[in-house]
């Protein structure tokens, strides 16, 4: 009896682990496939790949700059969105955790609202809104906002900041909630001014939250699709959009080479995160 129980337990355990391994394979296969495909020497992507080649990397670096342009645009927006949302997020987290009082919960929800709302809806709302405010000012004969938001870099950047801000906020407010206030009091008692206390005590302690939030914001903005698709300046494309257009009509492995570079970018950022603050500091 004891033997059969342990055997059935053993079989159950094997099934359980087998299932887990299969799900991990399911999660990782598409990424591995893209990386392998990028080294395919064949003209039209096929599996198994015909031979090893770096030609698609050369092609992606030389294709009249479309790929490079889109990568540069993506990085530019991602960096700016990260800087802005980190600055705003640090300030507003301090306010919400320390000073918001009875408004704390409502403010918290308001700030993470862009995460709760479907991104495509926010994108549509912004698109319509940009047109309408421009039309509104034009109707008043003050063409104040012509081209400021509508299909402009600035308008696109605002969309990205909206989406990345909640991630930074979650990271920083998380580490502020765990903050031992007596450390600040001690600093003040020892004669540290408000600014010194913030700079030497508060900031270093919440730094992991800030770093994790900022790195996450960087990746999220770099990958953002719906917002960029609807709001991008006409005639330009961020990397995800350039890829989207390419893989629908072209079948050579250039897209795989570009994707591999992006995957490596993501892995590097994740690796830095793990080294600096640990992956667990990422809050979703």
């Amino acid at each position, binding site marked *: 009896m004891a033997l059969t129980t342990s055997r059935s337990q053993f079989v*159950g355990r094997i099934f*359980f*682990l087998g*299932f*887990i391994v299969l*799900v991990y394979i399911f*999660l*990782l*296969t*598409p*990424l591995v*496939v*893209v990386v392998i*495909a990028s080294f395919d020497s064949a003209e039209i992507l096929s*599996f198994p790949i015909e031979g090893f080649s770096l030609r698609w990397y050369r092609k992606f670096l030389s294709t009249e700059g479309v790929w490079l342009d889109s990568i540069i645009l993506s990085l530019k927006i991602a960096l700016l969105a990260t800087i802005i949302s980190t600055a*705003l997020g640090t*300030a*507003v987290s301090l*306010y*919400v955790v*320390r*000073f*918001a009082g009875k408004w704390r919960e409502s*403010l918290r929800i*308001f*700030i993470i*609202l862009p995460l709760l*709302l*479907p991104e*495509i*809806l*926010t994108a*549509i709302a*912004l698109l*319509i*809104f940009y047109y309408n405010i421009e039309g509104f000012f034009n109707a008043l004969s003050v063409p104040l906002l012509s081209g400021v938001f509508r299909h402009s870099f600035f308008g696109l950047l*605002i*969309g990205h900041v*909206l989406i990345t*801000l909640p991630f930074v906020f979650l990271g920083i407010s998380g580490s502020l909630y765990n903050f031992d206030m007596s450390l600040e009091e001690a600093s003040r008692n020892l004669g540290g001014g408000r600014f010194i206390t913030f700079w030497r005590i508060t900031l270093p302690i919440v730094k992991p939250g800030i770093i994790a939030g900022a790195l996450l914001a960087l990746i999220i903005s770099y*990958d953002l*699709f719906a917002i960029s698709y*609807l709001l991008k300046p006409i005639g330009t494309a961020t*990397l*995800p959009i350039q*890829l*989207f257009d390419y*893989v629908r009509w072209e079948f050579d492995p250039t897209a*795989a080479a570009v*994707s591999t570079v*992006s*995957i490596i970018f*993501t*892995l590097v*950022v*994740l690796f830095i995160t*793990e080294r600096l603050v640990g*992956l*667990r500091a990422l809050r*979703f």
Partner: protein
Amino acid sequence: MTRSRLTLLLLIPTLALLVAFLLLPYVNMVVMSFRTPSTSAVFAPGFTTANYLNALLDPDFYYLEILWDTMVLGFWTTLICLTLGFPLAYHLARTQSRIKTLLYFFILSPLLVGVVIRCYGWMIILGPHNGLINNTLKQLNLIENSLPLMFNTFGVSVGLIHVFLPFMILPLLGSIQAVDPALEEASQSLGASRLKTMFKVIVPLSLPGIQAGSILVFVLTISSFVIPILLGSYKVMIMPTLVVQQIMDAMLWPFGAALAFILSIAGGLVIYVYLKLTARLVPGVQ
């Protein structure tokens, strides 16, 4: 300036951003959905409820059918993600393995690689002509004609499940970790089998994670847009693709906005019913 005024400076930039570029655009979109449609401009003066009525009372039920398909897709995607994600989250929450961080990394990295790239990976695997699966099966002489793995509901579902699975696993992971392992040991030493312990102890106690993950995956699915286009190629029409078509291609903003709100309200209702039902299934959990 008093101290409290000074602290307001921390809040105001973010608040201004959110009011101007989140609140106002959404209010504006609600207004837009009641605008009179026009053929010469994006909308005409005056207000009407016709946009909603046209969508809901279409004699062929065209829009309601797409709405229904969207909800069904959301239901199945959520259920499958839960089925695949729960064992994975449980294993990761309890494992003492040295590769725990690596496993966590395996879950995070697909999540953080762009959705277009992940769909592209599936296009290479599922593709009808040179796809990995079809090519392999042909070379093994198992099939003669390509299996229809892509540009249909199957392909779209595979992409959706893959992209949204990490969103199910992470909340589950959080709430399973919060369940004291001693409770499992107690249940088993009192004679319950592993499976019974799983369904009577762990699942009920991790209900908050199950709810959060399910809602996340459901909302993401019914508002997904890239995946249906890349893996379904407009042959699988769901509400978000329809809405974007109406707004970007047909320039029918009032109608598109109305469709978007019909989708949101329907999605909200489903989530409400889901929360009520799951709360009733497990007594004592709000």
